[in-house]
């Protein structure tokens, strides 16, 4: 449960990072999460987050033809999305430093 909440909290940063390197459609993003970050995140988690980012104006969408099936909705970072990514990255690095410092004595 705690692990799941921790991952959910970091998921926005991960998705923004992935979209910053390459705009992707939903299915591709799920695949990239698996292959590039080795995280198995369900579509029930990713799509509501993408929808929230879209509504907040962090990402925008465009349509692209698909070689098979209906057109794909491509998610792309907007200017505000890049700003949000920078802010979250700073926050994450600060948090990472704090966590690393606090757990460095723990024997695993």
């Amino acid at each position, binding site marked *: 449960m705690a692990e799941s909440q921790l991952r959910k909290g970091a998921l926005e940063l991960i998705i923004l990072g992935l979209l910053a390197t390459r705009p992707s*459609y*939903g*299915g591709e993003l799920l695949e990239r999460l698996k292959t590039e970050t080795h995280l198995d995140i369900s*579509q*029930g988690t990713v*799509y*509501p987050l*993408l*929808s929230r980012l*879209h*509504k*907040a*104006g962090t990402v*925008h*969408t*465009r*349509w*692209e*033809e698909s070689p098979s099936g*209906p*057109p794909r*909705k491509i998610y792309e970072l*907007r200017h505000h999305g890049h700003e949000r990514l920078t802010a979250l990255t700073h926050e994450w690095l600060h948090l990472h430093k704090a966590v690393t410092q606090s757990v460095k004595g723990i024997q695993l």
Partner: protein
Amino acid sequence: MRLRSTTEDGTRRFLGIPVSFPTRSNTTGKILRCFEPENPAIFVPRTAGIGWDLNIGAIAVKLGLIRPDDSLPDLEAYIPPTTRRALASAPWIGAASTCLYARNIARARRVVTKWHITGLPKRYSSGKAAAALSAGTSIALAALPIVISRIPTGNTSESESEPTSTQPASALDTARSADIVLTAHALGLQSLLLFSAEAARREIKHPHTRQLIASIGLLAAPIVTSAVLVATVKQALNGVSRALKSSSHTPASQPMPAPASASTKEDDNERI
């Protein structure tokens, strides 16, 4: 005891049960919750009242009929004009059909107005009252999208307003999508009224008999609503395909052709 307000969608809760009060500013967003494919929750707080409604979008995704990102507000501008006209006229055709059926039962002295789920008669009423109720409800359902669309949108400073003001889909697309969801629900309920009226007509000829068509009517309502919404999404996706194909034939420097509705959008350059 005061009702607690959630942070996510502004719906208040009492003992864990959602309680929705539609206001001028949040009605559209609450209507759209009934068809939200990106939301995996099957049950969503009701548009108005206590309890939950079905999220038909989530069900359609689970059945593999649409994808989670096939949201109606993003596709609305690509709905072909013929589909748009059909959606506008279908509830009035449904209302006219219900009125015709109502005429058949109006002359009867006693008509079934409520059925057991097994198809057996449960409650009776006079023919005139049953006909008036059936026809009146059907006409009200047809008029509902028009009435809702004419409610002026107030400011969003109320505590339970939803964060819809920053949506990339224009307010017009969002409002039209809510109209489509209402139309689909109206058609579903009209189909239920038609099945019930037909069952009542048959019961007049064969009193106190089981009418399975009344039970079928209960299933028809959600099926018709879902079919209308899924078909509209499919038609809109075809519209996107057509627009993409025609844009691929134009020079790269030119933008993608305007969608079918050619609606005014504040954020056109952020979309296709």
